[in-house]
């Protein structure tokens, strides 16, 4: 048995370690399972699901930027129905908490998706994406409006007893105000952050490099911003935080925990090294041993300011 207790809790959801795979960066688990033993991970979060299947944006959907990438996938996904029928059977085989991420254009659609998925016991929690910057309808608008985030939280809360995580937009002045609303309306945790709005243009054609014009910036470039957002929430609101943004190695995980995260999600790194998240678990353990930390969860919000 491991000498270090790596387990963490997100509200009532217990994870064997804080390493989660982020929405939109693991598909529905199939491909990544060829690189990594999913059973070792803390949790995996599905690609955002919408009520109906979505085709997503035409190409070009991604472009690399300094230490980051822009994406505007446009929430391409199979829809709730096909997910339950075709994707759940594969995911059922694993002993890893499955978190369903939901994206929608209306409050009713959020609620409807949650209802349809709620009965599936493989799904251990919901993460509500109110912050996708890459679809013309909904998305960003919700995420940058406190009332809308409050309403989504309370309505979805009424539709499920499972742990409810709201994934916050970083494209706001004071993210802690949104975390407070989530807490007030009964949300169990927040994820921070989703991508930053960005763009890139071809200087010869003068066209945007991405069909959708704007994309979401992810990767190490945004890590300092993500850390500041997590710290802000941690200092102001008493709610579990899942830290996300530019994590490339175990040191980044520790840094996110120190500023206030109970767990973290790995996104862009999965594209570059899909074996990395599993490897980090061992490295976190080594760090704890070397630094005489018996419970990894003690790191959460252990900043010295």
């Amino acid at each position, binding site marked *: 048995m491991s000498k270090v207790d790596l387990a963490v809790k997100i509200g009532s959801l217990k994870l064997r370690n804080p390493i989660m795979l982020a929405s939109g960066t693991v*598909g529905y688990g199939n*491909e990544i399972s060829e*690189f990594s033993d999913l059973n070792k991970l803390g949790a995996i979060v599905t690609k955002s699901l919408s009520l109906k299947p979505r*085709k997503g944006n035409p190409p070009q959907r991604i472009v690399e930027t300094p230490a980051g990438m822009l994406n505007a996938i446009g929430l391409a996904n199979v829809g709730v129905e096909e997910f339950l029928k075709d994707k759940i059977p594969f995911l059922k085989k694993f002993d890893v908490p499955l978190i369903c991420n939901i994206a929608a254009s209306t409050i009713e659609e959020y609620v409807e998706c949650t209802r349809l998925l709620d009965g599936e016991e493989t799904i251990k929690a919901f993460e509500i994406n109110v912050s996708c910057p890459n679809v013309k309808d909904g998305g960003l608008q919700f995420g940058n409006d406190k009332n809308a985030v409050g309403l989504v939280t309370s309505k979805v809360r009424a539709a499920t007893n499972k742990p409810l995580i709201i994934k916050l937009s970083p494209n706001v002045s004071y993210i802690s105000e949104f975390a407070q609303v989530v807490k007030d309306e009964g949300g169990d945790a927040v994820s921070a952050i989703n991508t930053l709005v960005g763009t890139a243009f071809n200087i010869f054609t003068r066209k945007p490099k991405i069909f959708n014009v704007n994309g979401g910036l992810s990767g190490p470039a945004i890590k300092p911003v993500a850390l500041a957002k997590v710290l802000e929430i941690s200092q102001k609101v008493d709610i579990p935080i899942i830290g996300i943004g530019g994590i*490339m190695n175990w040191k980044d995980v520790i840094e996110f925990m120190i500023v206030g995260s109970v767990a973290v999600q790995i996104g862009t790194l999965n594209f*570059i090294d*899909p074996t990395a998240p599993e490897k980090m678990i061992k490295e976190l353990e080594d760090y704890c041993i070397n630094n005489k930390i018996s419970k990894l969860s003690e790191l959460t919000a252990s900043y010295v300011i």
Partner: protein
Amino acid sequence: MFIINSSVIETKQVHENIFIQKIHSPEIAEIIKPGQFLNIRVSEATFPLLRRPFSICDVEGENIYLMFNILGEGTRILARKNPGELIDILGPLGNGFKLDDDFKSAIIVAGGLGAAPFPFVTRSLKNKKEILTFVGGRTKQDVITYGMENYILSSDDGSIGFNGNVVQSLERNLDKIDIASSKVFGCGPNAMLRVLKDYCINNNLDCEVSTECAMACGFGICQGCPIESTSNTDKYLLVCKDGPVFNVKDVVI
């Protein structure tokens, strides 16, 4: 599909700005098929951040070959790797060309760096099928015949071979081809593949092409590489997983 560190044996410049890199990688060599590709991390640092996709150019025993030109920092770093240095390879990825179909002649059509996958295709078909190869480029510098057999050259500016594009070059030599028993294999810029597709469909030529697209992951998890399908317009296909090789009938290029 796995990640492996393989060591560079040598990097040769075979043409203006065209490099052939020989890598000792028995694990990849054993299972990779012509038309598949590899996604390579050229640096451990965060720059460049993403892997860079490269077609498998050739396989010889335990060694694999890549062909590339220096476009940006990624390929520059790759070209500078010294013998013995390890490179981090994720692969094999995608499907390959279907070389076992019932055809007698393989018609290879390569535009510029579209030549990259064909040395391995040629090696695999040699002594089994007839091969006729059309190699074209904008100018002499872009016409790459490395690893090819029985080729006809063309250049857009006439500096080498036929003066015209590679599809026109194919058209001009249609008399040499028995349409019913031939299969076309194409690779090159999308603009060329579009023309090739139209030409083959109009002339009832069976044709597979290797397509290109900006990619983040290369193995199906990012949804970054959509390509429009002709049969199901509700859903995109993924270049990295469903391709990069497609029958021209199946996709909108």
